[in-house]
C-alpha cells in the first residue's frame, strides 16, 4: 500500500503546477485547464484518503467536485466566449478597462 503522504505530495505537485500555469499563462482557456488540474489535485487527495479512511465520503465528494468542475467549465467557456467577442481575444490580461 502506497503511503498517504505520497499522494499528498503528488496532489500538492499537481496543485502547484496548476497554480503555476494559472500565473504564467494569459490564455483564458489555459486558465481554465489549470484550474481543472488544481481540482484534480483535490480529487486525488479525496480519493486517496477515502481509501485510507475506509469510507466513501471522499469519493462521493470527488464526484461532486467533478460535476461542479464540469459546470464551472461550461459557465467559464460561456464567459470566455463573450470575452472573445468583446475584447477580440481570449487574453485575460487584455480586459483591463477597470482598475485602481
Amino acid at each position, binding site marked *: 500500500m502506497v503511503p498517504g503522504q505520497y499522494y499528498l505530495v503528488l*496532489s500538492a505537485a499537481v496543485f502547484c503546477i496548476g497554480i503555476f500555469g494559472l500565473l504564467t499563462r494569459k490564455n483564458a482557456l489555459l486558465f481554465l485547464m489549470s*484550474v481543472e488540474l488544481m481540482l484534480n489535485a483535490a*480529487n486525488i487527495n479525496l480519493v486517496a*484518503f477515502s481509501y485510507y479512511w475506509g469510507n466513501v*465520503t471522499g469519493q462521493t465528494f470527488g464526484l461532486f467536485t467533478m460535476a461542479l468542475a464540469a459546470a464551472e467549465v461550461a459557465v*467559464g467557456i460561456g*464567459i470566455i466566449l*463573450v470575452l472573445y467577442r*468583446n475584447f477580440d481575444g481570449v487574453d485575460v490580461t487584455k480586459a483591463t478597462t*477597470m482598475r485602481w
Partner: protein
Amino acid sequence: MTPLQTAPVWTAAAPAIILAATALLLLTIDTIDPDTTNNGLLATTATLGSLAAGGVAARFLMAGTGMESTGGAISLYGDALIVDGMSLFFTLIFTSVAAMVSVASYDYLADEQYQGEFYSLVLLAATGMTLMAMSNSLATVFVSLELASLPSYALVAFLKKNRGSVEAGLKYFLIGALSSAVFAFGISLVYAVTGSLVLPDIAAGLSGADELVGVLGLGVLMIAGGFAFKTASVPFHFWAPEAYEGAPAPISAFLSSASKAAGFAVAFRVFTVAFPLGTISSLGPGGIDWSLLFAILAVVTMTLGNFAAATQENVKRMLAYSSIGHAGYALIGLAAITVDGGAANGNVLGASMAHLLVYGFMNTGAFLFIAMVEKWGIGRTFEDYNGIASKAPIAATAMTVFMFSLAGLPPFGGFVSKYALFYSAIESGFWWLAAVGAMNSALSLFYYSRVVKAMWIEEPAKSLEIGSQPVGLYGAVVFAAVGTVLLLPGFQPVIETAQTVAAALF
C-alpha cells in the same frame, strides 16, 4: 424536532425550497412566453418568492424553529444540512436583499433580453446562499457555494454587450474558479487529516491530528481562503472592485450584500463547529490559531478597503471598496472569538451577524441608488452626481441615509450595529481590533460624505436631466432607507435574535 407541530421534518428547509421552486417557476414562465417585454410578472414572481421565503424564515425564527427553545437544531439529509436560528437569520438577509433586488430589477432590466433567466438565476443564487447557511458538511458547503457562485458569474456578465460587465464577469469567474480550486483542495486536506466532511465529525476527528497539524493548517487556511473569496476579504478580494463596478448595479447590490453575508454565514458555522478554537489551537506545537488569522485579515481588509475607497472617482467603485471594508468589520465576528470566551463569543458573532443584516439594507440600498443613476444615464463619477438632490430629493435623501449609515453615523442602523460589533469585540478583549475598526470608520466618513456632498452641495451640471421616475427602483431604495432608519430604534430584536442564535453555535 418538528418545526411546526404537524409538519414533517423536511419542511424546515422550506425557505430554500420556496426559493428553488420560484426559480423553476420563473424558468417555466419564461419558457411559456420567452419573448415577453413586460417583465412585471417575472419581477413580481421573483419578489413574492423571495418574500415568501423570507416570511417563512421570519416565522420560523419567531417560532423558535431549530433553536434550543424547541429542541435544538434540526438536521436534514444525514446531517448534510442543518436548520437552526443562524441559518434562518441569514436566510432573512438573503431573501430581503433578493426581494429588493428583484423589485429594483423591474426597472433596471426594462430594455434587456433574457429577463426570465436573470430572475431565475438570482433566485437560484439565493437558494445557494440559503443552503450555504444551512450546510453542515464541507461537501454541502462546497456544492452550495458553487451553486451560489455559478449563477453569480453569469449575472455579473449579464450585460454581454457591455465590456465592463463582461470584464467583470471574467475576472469574477477566474478568481472564483481559482478560489474554488483552493477551497476544494483545502477540504481535501482536512478530509485527509480527519477522515470526515460533516462538521461536528471533523471537530471530533481533530484530536488525532497532532502529527499532521501542518497539513490540517494548510487545509484550514485554504478553506478560509474559499470563504474569503465569497466575502471579498483580503487577499481574495481582487475580483470585488471590478465585479461590483462592472456588474449590473442590482447584481452588485446582490453580491455585495447577500453573497457576502452567505460567505460569512458558512464561515461562521464551519469555523465554530468544525474547527472549535479550543481544540484546534492546542494541536501540535502551536496549533492553528484561526482567530489570529481572521484578526489579521480583518485589519488588512478594512484598512485596504477604506483607504482604496477614499481616493476613488467612480461612485460605484468606491462602494465596491467600501464593501470590502465592511467585510473587514464583519470579520471581527470571527477574529474576536477566544478559547475561553464563553458568552462573549456568541455576542461578538451575533453582533457581526446583526451588522450584516443592517449592512444588507444599507448597502443594497446604496447600490440600488446607483442602479437608479445608471438608469437615468447620468454617469458614474462623483462629478456626475453633482446636484442630483435638486432633481430627485427623495432618492438623494435615501442615498444620504445609506452613506451616513454605512459610515456608522447616528441616527441610522449602521451606527448601532457597528457599535454593537465593536462593543462586543471589546467585551471579548479585542479592544485594539475595535479601535482599528473605529478608526477606519472615521476615515470612511470622508468618502461617504463625498457622495453626499456631490448630491447636495455641488451645483448640478447644466445638462443634468433625470428622465424617468422608476417606480420599482424608487420603491426598493425607499424601502431600504426606511429599513436602515428603523433599524436604529428597532435594533433590539435583531441583536437579541442574532446573539441568541450565535450562542447556539458554541
